[in-house]
């Protein structure tokens, strides 16, 4: 997903035309990633509210998707599929029946989970009306992805600014208006089903042809480009400035978690301790994506934000101390 964002930014900067087949392969890989990411989230959400059966079943359903990804790309996660100008591997025709079979299987089981969750009154007691993010607050805090769509904000980069092959496959943006954890849950489960639909359609529409563009001249330096990708957690932006060397002069990625976390204090306001973990979890946070560590001195209320360099220094000092022992 990030590699797609980066490659698209560079392709835009260097004006490289990506072959259609490569765009379709990118779409399929992106959607497989969304399917397994949402199922992973569902499992963790179940675990947080003590429902370990959901955790085990969701991850069992997810596993064939990982195997499929491994068969297509060689990796279960971090596929290494994208290169500037196309993709590294083709999806051969022999694999199509296998992909469709896994999609059928995952769809059937995801629907079963959806029905089980919808009918479970105890789950709804825990999730409905909890962790509310009103529509106007969601817009004011610019929260992204399924978290925003659960509050009735119909934003989705795939539909708003189509990339890869989303213009061809089309995307039905799933929006729920519940504004609570339950709405965010339903959005993610329904999106999983929509992703399965997109994989099927992309597979059927995939044209023949090369999977990599021919790049015959060097990428011109000083070009600026930005590209956006709808990650499972929300939109991700990549900003690139090219240089004379074979690497970017500047590169900045913005993941959605930091944005989504801004609304958490509001969502947990006046809630009980028991609701805090699931409320935080309902935004599908990726803490390593927030690249910021804040320390509050409780004695005098002083706030200190650690920079990357300071954190590195702290880690090195710790290592030195441990070695010295």
């Amino acid at each position, binding site marked *: 997903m990030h590699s797609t964002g980066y490659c698209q930014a560079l392709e835009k900067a260097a004006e490289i035309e990506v072959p259609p087949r490569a765009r379709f392969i990118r779409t399929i890989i992106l959607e497989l990633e969304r399917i397994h990411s949402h199922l992973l989230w569902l499992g963790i959400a179940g675990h947080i509210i003590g429902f370990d*059966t959901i955790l085990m*079943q969701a991850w069992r359903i997810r596993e064939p998707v990982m195997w499929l990804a491994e068969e297509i790309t060689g990796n279960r996660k971090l596929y290494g599929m994208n290169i500037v100008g196309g993709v590294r591997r083709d999806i051969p025709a022999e694999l199509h029946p296998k992909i469709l079979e896994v999609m059928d299987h995952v769809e059937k089981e995801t629907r079963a989970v959806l029905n089980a969750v919808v009918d479970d009154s*105890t789950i709804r007691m825990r999730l409905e009306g909890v962790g509310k993010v009103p529509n106007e607050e969601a817009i004011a805090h610019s929260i992204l992805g399924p978290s925003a769509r659960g509050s009735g904000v119909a934003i989705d980069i795939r539909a708003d600014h189509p990339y890869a092959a989303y213009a061809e496959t089309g995307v039905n943006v799933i929006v729920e208006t519940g504004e609570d954890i339950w709405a965010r849950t339903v959005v993610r489960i329904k999106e999983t089903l929509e992703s399965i639909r997109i994989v099927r359609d992309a597979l059927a529409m995939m044209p023949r042809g090369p999977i990599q563009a021919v790049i015959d001249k060097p990428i011109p330096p000083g070009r600026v480009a930005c590209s956006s990708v709808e990650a499972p957690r929300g939109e991700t932006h990549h900003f690139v400035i090219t240089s004379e060397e074979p690497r970017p002069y500047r590169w900045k990625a913005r993941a959605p978690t930091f944005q989504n976390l801004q609304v958490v204090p509001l969502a947990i306001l006046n809630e009980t301790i028991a609701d*805090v973990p699931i409320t935080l979890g309902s935004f599908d946070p990726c803490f390593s994506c927030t690249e910021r560590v804040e320390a509050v001195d409780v004695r005098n209320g002083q706030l200190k934000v650690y920079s990357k360099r300071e954190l590195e220094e702290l880690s090195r000092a710790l290592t030195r101390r441990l070695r010295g022992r």
Partner: protein
Amino acid sequence: MNQNVILGVVNVVLVFLLSPLLEGTLRKLKAFVHSRVGPPVYQPYLDLLKLLGKEEVECEGTVLFRWSPVVALAAVLSVALLTPVGLVPPLDAAGEVIVFVYLITLSGVAVMASGIGSGSPYGIVGSAREMMLILTVEPVLAIALITVAVKAGSMKFSDILAYQTSHPYSLSMVLVTFSLFMAVLAQLAKLPFDIVEAETEIMEGPFIEQSGPRLALFKWSFYAKELIFASLLATIFFPWPRISEPVLTVVVHLLKIVLLLLIVGVIDAVNPRLRIDQAIRFYGALIFVAFAGLAFAIVGS
């Protein structure tokens, strides 16, 4: 009397030694619902042995923290002296029902003391939850037991048992059996009432600082509680089938215990955890069901 003492000791030893096996069976069941293989049924024994062999880690704990596991296990094992596991209640004395309720409450209080004694904020939240649960669950338990006592006209488990095996099941029994079963879910800290420990919320709450042998004692007291409550339900609240053959009775009794715990296990596997306020509202309503049972018992139906 002498025979009773021997029976009592046998009872306690049986509860002590067999309860981890039941826990192991429950874990297997949970694994089945999860589509997992699960640990072998003897895993709880290994867990307990491992914990017992570890060094004791002290926190800034007080006397409460250090002695609460001992009190918890002692209370539960004393309950094993009173509860009929198998044929007859071992120690047969007047007012057993009241002692039963007291001792079970004591084991809950020990959990609370452990959390308060640990000084950890998570422990204190857990203890507060335990206190709220005790306050709403104990009355249900007490009313259910008093109802059967009223019906039998005695506070002795042997009299109650004799009454239950010779009289037909009544409306009041249906009501109190349902309430007691629900109360047992909270007593055993099973989902949806696994609120005191709530691993993902307050990290095992009262047990957060407990480790090694002390944690083993707590765990063992919970396993023993499972067996005792299942046994109580099986003998007094589900008295069928009524068999006079002693050996067959024991076999049937054990089957009933396993069956009851399987039901508890399935409920545990298919429910998320409730919030404490939701649980209290539930038990608050359940107290009225239990009271209705008691009222029916008093008017004689």
